[in-house]
C-alpha cells in the first residue's frame, strides 16, 4: 500500500500538468476560433511573417 503514497501524487501531478496545458491553450486564444482552426490546418505553406498571437 505504501506505493500509493508515490503513485497517487504522481497521478495528480500529471493531471495538474494537463490542466495547466489547457489553461495555457485558453489563454493563447486557441479556443476562440475553432472554425478557422479547422480550415487553417489545410494550408500547404506557412505564410511568411506569421507569428503566434
Amino acid at each position, binding site marked *: 500500500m505504501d506505493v500509493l503514497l508515490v503513485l497517487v501524487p504522481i497521478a495528480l501531478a500529471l493531471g495538474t500538468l494537463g490542466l495547466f496545458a489547457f489553461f495555457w491553450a*485558453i489563454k493563447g486564444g486557441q*479556443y*476562440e*476560433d475553432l472554425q478557422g482552426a479547422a*480550415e487553417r490546418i489545410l*494550408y500547404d505553406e506557412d505564410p*511568411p*511573417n506569421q507569428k503566434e*498571437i
Partner: protein
Amino acid sequence: MTTVSLLDVGQQGRAAAMPGPGTKAGYVACRGNGGCGLSLLVAEVHCGACIRRIESRLSREPAVELVRLNLSTRRLDVRWHGTADFADEIIAMLAGLGYEASPYVAEALVERDRATESTLLKALAVAFFAASNVMMLSWAVWVGHDGGMGQGTRAFFHWMSALIAVPSIVYAGTPFFASAWSAVRRARTNMDVPISLGVILTAAMSLAETVRGGPHVYFDGALSLLFVLLLGRYLDQQVRAKARSAVQNLAILAARPVSVIGDDGRSRATPADLVKSGELVLAAAGERIGVDGVVIAGHSSVDTSLINGESAPKPVTKGDQVFAGTLNLLSPLSILAQAAGASTVLSDIIRLVEAAEQKRGRFVALADRTVRWYTPVVHVLAASTFVGWLLLMEAGWQVALVNAVSVLIIACPCALGLAVPVTQVVAASRLMRAGLLLKSETALERLASIDTILFDKTGTLTLAQPVLSEHPDDAEILRLASGLAAASRHPLAVAIRNAIPDAPMLDYVQEVPGFGLSWNGPHGEVRLGSAAWCQIEPSLDSHAEAWLVSPGSPPRRFSFATELRPGAVETVAALRRSGYRLAIISGDRSETVGDIAAAVGIADWHAGVSPREKIARVERLLQAGRRVLMVGDGINDAPALAAATASLAPAEAADVAGRAADCVWLGRSLASVPMLLRTARQARAIVIQNIGFSFVYNAAWIPVAMAGIVTPWIAALAMSASSLAVTFNALRLNLSMRGEA
C-alpha cells in the same frame, strides 16, 4: 516579440490616436515604439480560402508584423510597424482582394463575452479534473469499506480528496458563489443560492469529517454537481455570445464616421455624435448621411427607405432637408448640420425603440419565474429538516446537518440549471444552421406564444432593390441602356445594369440628379431617364419606369417591379394554414403596398404608416390580448420591432432594426419563418416537460431526504440521474427536427 495584444493596445491607444483626413486611421491604436494595430470587421469572409487569401496577401507586406483572421467572428487583427496611415493601405489591399472592411468598434462588448467564456471554460476544466480524480479516490474508499481498507489508508485518501476538492470548489464555484452573493446581498434569491449553499455545506461537512477521521466524505458529489451545472452554463453562454456577436457585426457595418469640413477646408473623419450644429458635413455618393441638416451645395437623390419605408428615391437639391440614416445615391452633397447624435430624427426613433424594449424587458423566462418561488421553499424545507432532526429527534448536529444537506442537494434545480440551457442550445444551433440567429434568451419562449404576424413590406416581403420587369426586345438597345446605366448608382440604373451585366460601359456619361443620364454617341445624344428627361408623355402605369431615347429610333420604355422575396408566397400560405393572423403595415404608398399584398395573399394591409403609428398599432393588438410577431427591416420598423411580443429582422436590416429584433435571419428567402415558430413551440414544450419532471422528481425525493434515509451520496446519484434524464429529453428536439432539414 512584445506580448501586448491588439486588444490591450486598442483600449489604451484609441483616445490618443489622431484621426487622419478621411481615413480609417482614427481607429488605429499606436504604441510608443512605432507599432500600430487595427481590428477590422471583414463581413464577407466565409471559408478557409478567404483566410488564406487575406492572411497571405497582408503578410507579404514587409511592414506587417502580424495578421490573424478569426473566422467565427469575422474579425481581422493586423499589427504593423510604421505610421497609422498604413491602415488605409490595408483597407485598399482588402478592397483589391474583394473584401469590404469596417473598423471593429464594438470590441469592448465582444471582449466581455470572450472573458466570460474563458472563465467558464477554465472553471469547467477544473471541475472536470477535480471531479474525476476525487471520484477515483472515492471509489477506492467505497470498495475499501467492505474490503478491510485500513484506517490510515482511508484517511490518506480523504486528505488527498480534500486537497484536490477544496481549492477546486473555490475556483470552479466562483461563478455561482458570486452570483448567489450578489443576490443575497440585495435580499433576493436566485437559482445560484441553493446551489452555492449545497456545495459549500457539503464541502465544509466533508472537510470536518476528514479532520475528524470519520468514515464518510462527499467531495465527489459536490464536484460532480458543479461540473454538471457549469456545463449547462457554458453551453448557454456559447449560444448567446455567438448570436450576439453576429448581430454586433451587423451594427458595426453601419457605424461609419462622418466627414466634417474644417475651417482650413480639409475634411476629417469624426464620429457622428461629435458633429456640432452649424458645421459643414460632406456626404459622398453612396454614403449614408450622418446628420440631420440642410443641403447647401450639390444635388442628388436620397434613399429614405430606412426612415420612412418609401421605396422610390427622393431628389434633393440646395435648401432641402436631409436626415441622418438616409443614403446619398448620386453625387456628393455638402450639408449644414442642424442636429447630430442624440438630437436627430434617427435618435428619436432609437429612443422609441429603447422605451419599447424596456417594456419587453420585464418578460421573465419561465425557468426564472419558477425559481423565484421554488428556492425559498427548498431553503425552508432544508432548514426545517435541520431543526427537526436537532430538536425533535434529538440527533447530533452532524446527523441533522447531513440530512439538511441531502435535502439541498436532492432539490437542486438541475432540471432548470441544465436542461433549459441544453434545450436552448439544441434549438439555437438548429436555427443557426438554418440561418436564424437568436439574440435574446427569452426569444424562444416569446416566439412560441405568437398568434399574429405583422409584416413590413419593403425589404421584408420584397427585396429592397427593384428589378427590370419589362424592356424592349432589341439587343442593341439593351446593350446601349446597360452601358449608360453602368455610370449611375440610381436604383433603377442598377436594376438595368444587373439585368444586362455584360454590356461594355460607355465613357463620358453625364448624370443629372433627379432626371437621368445622357451620352453623346456617334449619331447624337442618347438619353436614359424619366419621361420628363426624355421629353415624352409619362405612361399612367403605377410602376416605376425609365425611358431611352436615341436618335433615329422611337422612345423605348423600361419598367420595374419590386421583386418578392423568394419563398414569400409559400411562407405566407404556410403561416395562414398554421392558423396565424397575418397583416402588412408599411410606410410606403398604398398602390405599391396593395400590389404586394395581393401578390402574397394578405388581405389585411395598411399603407403610409409612420413609425409612431406602427408602434401604436402593435400596442393596440397587444392590449387586445394578441401575441404579435413583427417582421421588418427599416429604422421605421424598429420601434414596432421592439414593442412587439417578438420580432424578426433580415440580416441586411438597418442596424437599429437589427438591434431591436429578437432574431435575425440570413439569406434571401423567407422560408425560415415557419421553421422558427415551430422550433420555438417544440422547445417550449420540452422546457415545460423538464420543469414538470423535476417537480415530480423533487416531490418524490425530498420527503425521503427529510426522513434521513438517503445519504448525500445517494442524493448526488439521484440528482445526476435526473440531470441525464432532462438532458436526453432536450436532445429529443434534435431528433424531431432531423427529418425536416
